[in-house]
């Protein structure tokens, strides 16, 4: 058995606030495999963003251990070069696209990361072109970011991370400020990066539908790991989720309501298609007639 890509053990972190220490993360342990797609759920202030910033050493934990690709990054003897290597491997995309773009020309911004890494000029050019193609923004290479839509800006931010050739990308509520179209584009890119490029994806979100796309869900509550499992497992506990200020996708909610009314519906029901399949199966079992519309 290979060791996991990210291994977090007994991680704790507290903010200093007016002399008092306010714990944000408490004794948190979990692991993420290489190439996994993991969603992190939790209410506002549950410690999700802090966790993200600990994973690439923007913050230093008070206690506990983080191992990434076999190297303990919480090791006090970590060299500066190793620190930047961690940040390169663990790319991060934030919520507000405006506050993460540095340059006034799209391609210059995408080049920012590789330039910092000291990549040779010709290779930067190549990486920038590839990254922009991957997010479908080649046409905008010479545009000014501030004239683009939120979704487009966020795609530029993602391209800027891709150009650093990361192993893992952490999305910190990266869809929260986008309209449905922008969100759809960003989610498609996330899927794509994970499925086709094998990039490990950690996504922090408030949208249950987005968490349902992941391989696995971690639920945080007040800095502690509250639940973890596949989306199907997690969303089969609507009451526990409601108790900590979360909910379940509408599809799952419907199936729970039907079950509560005594109608047995089998299956996971995370997406409309799964949900429709499960309900049709239940209807067939009850001998309810189907009259498909003639078109």
């Amino acid at each position, binding site marked *: 058995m290979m060791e996991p890509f990210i291994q977090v053990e007994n991680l704790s972190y507290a903010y200093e606030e007016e002399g008092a220490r306010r714990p944000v993360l408490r004794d948190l342990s979990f692991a993420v495999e290489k190439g996994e797609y993991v969603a992190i759920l939790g209410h506002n202030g549950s410690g999700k963003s802090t966790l993200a910033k600990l994973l690439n050493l923007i913050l230093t934990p008070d206690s506990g251990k983080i191992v990434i690709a076999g190297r303990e990054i919480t090791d006090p003897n970590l060299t500066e070069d190793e620190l930047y290597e961690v940040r390169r491997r663990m790319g991060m995309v934030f919520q507000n696209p*405006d506050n993460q*773009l540095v340059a006034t020309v799209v391609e210059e911004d995408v080049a920012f990361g590789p*330039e*910092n890494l000291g990549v040779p000029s010709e290779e930067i050019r190549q990486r920038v072109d590839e990254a922009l193609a991957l997010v479908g923004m080649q046409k905008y290479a010479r545009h000014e970011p501030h004239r683009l839509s939120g979704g487009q800006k966020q795609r530029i931010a993602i391209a800027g991370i891709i150009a650093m050739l990361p192993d893992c990308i952490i999305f910190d509520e990266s869809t929260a400020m986008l309209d449905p179209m922008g969100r759809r584009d960003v989610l498609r890119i996330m899927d794509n990066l994970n499925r086709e490029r094998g990039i490990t994806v950690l996504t922090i979100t408030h949208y249950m539908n987005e968490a349902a796309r992941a391989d696995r869900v971690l639920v945080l509550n007040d800095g502690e790991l509250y639940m973890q499992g596949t989306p199907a497992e997690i969303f089969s506990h609507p009451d526990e989720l409601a108790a900590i200020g979360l909910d379940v996708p509408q599809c799952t909610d419907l199936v729970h309501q039907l079950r509560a009314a005594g109608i047995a519906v089998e299956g996971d029901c995370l997406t409309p298609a799964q949900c429709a399949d499960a309900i049709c199966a239940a209807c067939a079992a009850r001998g309810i007639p189907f009259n498909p519309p003639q078109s």
Partner: protein
Amino acid sequence: MSSITLGQYFPGNSLLHRLDPRFKIVLAILYITASFLCKNIWSFAALAISAVVLVLVSRIPVSIVLRGLRPILFIMLFTVVLNIFLTRGETLLVEFWVIRIYLEGILTAVSMVLRITVIIVGTGMFLTYTTTPIALTDGIERLLSPLKVFHLPVHEFAMMMTIALRFIPLLIEETEKIMAAQKARGADFSTGSLLQRAKALIPILVPLFVSAFRRADELAVAMECRCYRGGEGRTRMTVLHATAADWLMLAAVILFGASLVLINRFAPGFTL
């Protein structure tokens, strides 16, 4: 929604647009220096012609260039009036009540106006109209990079410029939004005494500062996440290469300066 463009960059692909920004900065400095070499009416004429040639080469519409001169119109008028009425010379043209206008006054006024115009047009054609702010910043950084030897924070200065250019439109937009939000709560920015109006600014300034600091904070984290560690060990995607055109243009401007000196010496008359 807002459509604020910083500077006066006018997109195009003329010879001037394509020059290396480092050369353009040097060219602009040389050209302005040359304008101070003019001593008589012939060299001034040469200077005026050169400015027209520059505008033609840049392919920027004359109307746009003239619009760029509008803000300094007042200063020019002021200079003209001052020079015409106050310069004392030998050739008296008009004498009326206390007013005495001399030929020298008129000539000085014309030369001043021409000089100001050339400085504005020159910097405009070489720099602001034909060079994007980012290329300009880049040019400055690379021109000054030898100064790093003396531990001058050249890279940091250029980075600051870049970030300022990126965030100024955002902050202007933000100011508009905050003003709208406070107006929706009945804020009044346009009436009342000076003190009242100054006080009315607090509901704009406090949120604006809070927001600017938040943005700065988030941007700093995002930059760290993208492995930013200052100028050390940094490479660049675009490498500036001086082309034959850059060197030729440099030679042309130097020759132009030299010819002005020659004109001063050998073309007689109307020394200013």
